[in-house]
């Protein structure tokens, strides 16, 4: 038997998958679910829950907590953890499973047009940090929360690759 805590948007799902009786049983938030899943290769599967049919594509590393589920044309971000580990984490007061993003990294390759902050500077959510040209468009990278800039790894005119660190918060 496996026991997971799955978080979708604001909702938590406490899901057990049990094979001990010889057949598969799914329990979701204390409710028995009649579900059938057929694997279609890779991360794709066909899920029939209570007669309702969904072709799903679960993307993400098989170990990471963050997954994206493609379902009926929507990309749905989902967090999954071992249930007991999640409880332990919660008791220890560690907040969300998602790591707090201290680094600001490039989402795609581009060119730094402008650096608008300096190390030590205190910024507020929404404040512009960098201007990056990517795919011929100027994109303004804004702070997602309040914080203090620890270091700036790029200067105007730098070419950056996807994943490159551009800034670090303290």
């Amino acid at each position, binding site marked *: 038997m496996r026991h997971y805590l*799955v978080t979708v948007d604001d909702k938590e799902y406490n899901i057990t998958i049990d094979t001990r009786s010889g057949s598969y049983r799914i329990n*979701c938030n204390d409710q028995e679910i009649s579900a059938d899943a057929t694997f279609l290769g*890779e991360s794709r599967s066909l899920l029939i829950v209570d007669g309702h049919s969904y072709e799903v594509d*679960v993307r993400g590393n*098989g170990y990471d907590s963050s*997954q994206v589920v*493609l379902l009926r044309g929507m990309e749905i971000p989902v967090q999954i953890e071992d249930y007991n580990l999640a409880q332990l984490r919660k008791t220890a007061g560690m907040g969300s499973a998602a790591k707090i993003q201290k680094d600001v990294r490039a989402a795609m390759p581009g060119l730094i047009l402008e650096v608008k902050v300096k190390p030590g500077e205190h910024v507020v959510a929404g404040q512009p940090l960098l201007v990056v040209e990517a795919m011929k468009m100027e994109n303004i990278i804004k702070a997602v929360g309040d914080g203090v800039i620890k270091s700036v790894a790029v200067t105007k005119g730098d070419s950056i690759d996807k994943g490159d660190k551009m800034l670090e918060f303290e």
Partner: protein
Amino acid sequence: MSRQIKKILIANRGEIAVRVIRACRDQEITSVAVFSECDRSAYHVRIADEAYYIGPSPSSESYLVHEKIIEVALSCGADAIHPGYGFLAENSVFAQKCVDAGLTFIGPKPETIALLGDKLQARQVAIKAGLPVTPGFEFDIDNLESAKREADKVGYPILVKAAAGGGGKGMRVVHKPDEFAEAITTASREATSAFGDGRVYVEKYLVRPRHIEFQILCDQHGNCLHLGERECSIQRRHQKVIEECPSPMMTPELRETMGAAAVNIARESGYIGAGTVEFLVDEDHSFYFLEVNTRLQVEHPVTELVTGIDLIKQQFHVAEGKRLSLTQDDIVLNGHAIEYRIYAEDPQAGFMPSTGTLKNYRIPAGPGVRVDSGVVIHSEIPIYYDPMIAKLSVWGQDRMEAIRRGRRALEEYRLAGVTTTIGFHRVVMDNQTFIDGNLSTRFLEEEYPDNKYSLLNDSLKQKAAIATAIDRFVKERRIMTQQGKQGESGWLRRHRADTVKHFSGSK
């Protein structure tokens, strides 16, 4: 004056190259693709009759290099060049070089492209042709202070636009006088980078306009007609994402008036071929000339679906010097069509471009569904070009049927590995303001101020949760047992024994 086109080089890539190649094949014209380094196995290369390498991946070293393209065209014996949209489509210098090399450029005359491509001159042509224009002015970027005073006279908000612009590049809305200087600087810099021309000008900014454009078609013998309108009000970053034909606000009378205006500016500028006259329409139905796009538009399929006319075939026809075989009375709008642009972008992140490899790619099909796609499974989305990877267009007997069919087709679309606008479109199709046809170019910012596009309800959340749990369970088990390499897992094989319960409906 008429010469038959037998071989066309398509100076483009992606879905529009595929579209033009298909049109060539449909008309028994030999198609020639060109490709850059990263497009070596792109879909347009695969389906063309011939394909030639033209340089490294950056478009400035391949798709934008006039000489390379003309050299390939001459050496392979093409008699015409179709520029698609973007890249060299509205470049009058390139068009002239084609003509000089003895190649038919499929588009208007170079001088018409130059005239209408300069937004400032185009405004003058529009005024001469009797079209209403928005209040505005041009100015010298070195004399910002006087420009600022003129802007005060026009009244804020104002719009800064690149004279050479298009596609939302080099465009900025300015709400307050103290943002004026920075907006001018940024817009001019972006325009320089995108078009090599930093000139900008200023127009009155209409707060809640609709973007409505008319498709025009003119031959070399003075015949000119319009093929009705397209409404393209759903925009992000001043770029269209959803287009439809007809506009839900259009009346037959207004269509006749605006269509006549579109034909007038076409005649005034000596237009030849297919083009688009764009207007802004205010809430009181007054309309203002915006610009002329001297090329095929991205959104041409909605017009094709509603009129039954193949616009690229018409371009070929006109480029061969033939007279239009259609008259204005032949243009009948039947039903309703909607186009969804599938961008490799993350709508939740402000439509930030995304890149990656298509791990799964299955297009929707069936009645009333048309897909123009530039990618196939395993395609990589390169960073060098526009992030639009495909267009989905649907047709319905009426607008509501088109919306329903759009929902269906968007849900059928299976694409994994890259974040796209598919889910965004699906969300908009359930938006009551959209369904009511109450559109404006500010639709997205008004309806989704926080960029949160979601149709998630508790039932779908639960399904996503269960799907993730099962996926994780199977992956963990696979690792543990080293079984299940062949797609079908032990889960399934065991589970088959239980299936009768699904038939019996018990739960």
